[in-house]
């Protein structure tokens, strides 16, 4: 039986002050600052120009299936984001309290490293079989209407990511949301995920408990 996994606790690191910026986000932007629940996050790029990927995200060849390459567009009106669009979304929709950045991976993966400002909603909790799914949808702003349906007109914007181009956690989460009636135009897909995010040296957070 699938149980609801508590959504999301974000832990944050205090934004570190940027120093000399040889590795910028764009020519005119060296950091992205935004707030969620009163906490300020700062995303920058690692300034070590010789840094290389370490650990999990150096892996090239996870078995397919299940880890098959995802299309650039999931279709059905869901827009695909790159890194700049994710940061812009964090600075506007998330900071304004009208959007959430959703990490669709497992809590264990989320705890190790995640995008600052993201909340963990494992894709499996959005499956139709999870009898607590309506609670999650209500937490996202859906409202019950007569006849057991839900009204999503006031629901939050969502940007969903998972491990990378090879991961179907985020596509599954999005598919489940759309099947539940969530409007596609409120959903965005950050296809690059953790692998692309770390591959360009962008900041991550860790909430892993060392104990």
């Amino acid at each position, binding site marked *: 039986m699938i149980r609801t996994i508590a959504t999301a606790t974000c832990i944050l690191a205090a934004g570190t002050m940027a120093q000399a910026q040889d590795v910028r986000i*764009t020519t005119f932007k060296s950091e992205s600052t935004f707030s969620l629940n009163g906490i300020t996050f700062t995303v920058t790029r690692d300034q070590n120009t010789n840094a290389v990927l370490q650990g999990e995200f150096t892996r090239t060849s996870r078995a397919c299936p299940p880890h098959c390459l995802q299309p650039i567009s999931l279709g059905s009106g869901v827009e695909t984001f790159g890194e700049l669009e994710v940061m812009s979304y964090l600075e506007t929709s998330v900071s304004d309290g009208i959007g959430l950045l959703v990490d669709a991976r497992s809590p264990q993966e989320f705890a190790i490293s995640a995008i600052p400002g993201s909340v963990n909603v494992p894709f499996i909790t959005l499956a139709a079989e999870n009898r607590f799914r309506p609670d999650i949808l209500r937490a996202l702003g859906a409202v019950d209407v007569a006849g057991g349906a839900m009204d999503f007109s006031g629901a939050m914007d969502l940007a969903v990511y998972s491990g990378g181009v090879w991961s179907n956690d985020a596509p599954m989460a999005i598919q489940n949301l759309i099947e539940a009636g969530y409007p596609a135009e409120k959903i965005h897909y950050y296809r690059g995920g953790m692998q692309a995010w770390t591959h360009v040296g962008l900041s991550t957070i860790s909430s892993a408990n060392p104990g």
Partner: protein
Amino acid sequence: MKRTVLACIAIGTSSAAVAQTLPVTADAVFTFNGQEITISRSATLPADSFDVVSRAYSDCPAPCLSPMIVASGVATFGELDVIEFMSGPVEDGDGLLIDARLPADRQAGGFIPASVNIPSATVAPENPYRDEIFLALGVEQFQGIFSFDAALSLVVFDDGPATQDAPTFITDMVDAGYPPEKISYYRGGMQVWTTLGLTTQKGGQ
């Protein structure tokens, strides 16, 4: 002024596909310039190419992160689109997969099979020989007026989301009148292609 040469690097022999335990969805097999090319996912990344492609970043300002859409009307491609493009328009002679990096970068880290090297600087407006590149891409010229009706479809890539060779190539081409619907941007580039273990090629000229 130094002449920039259109270096259409022909593809060398296709490497034999290794143990194919990790299909993309299925291996893509197509021919280009008479060579049969197979795109598959390998179990390991060649150690000698890893250093180049796994570098997490390059210096900014020149190479900064690219947006998802680099020019109006230019589609952004993922790997599956690139592979479909190779086994469709490229194989049929209607399309070219263009590596917009410098030849040295292409030599150092390898490249996507069936791609041709047209460094972004060669399509900059400052290059007095740019028209010749257009002609090679199927653009027709009559009394100084270009017609792009018969021009090839192009998919352009570079090192990845943190480099600007492909976006520069694309914006220069669109500014020159190349129809945006004939150009697509493979944003992931070598960085994503290789981190997925997809087939690459080294050498050539």
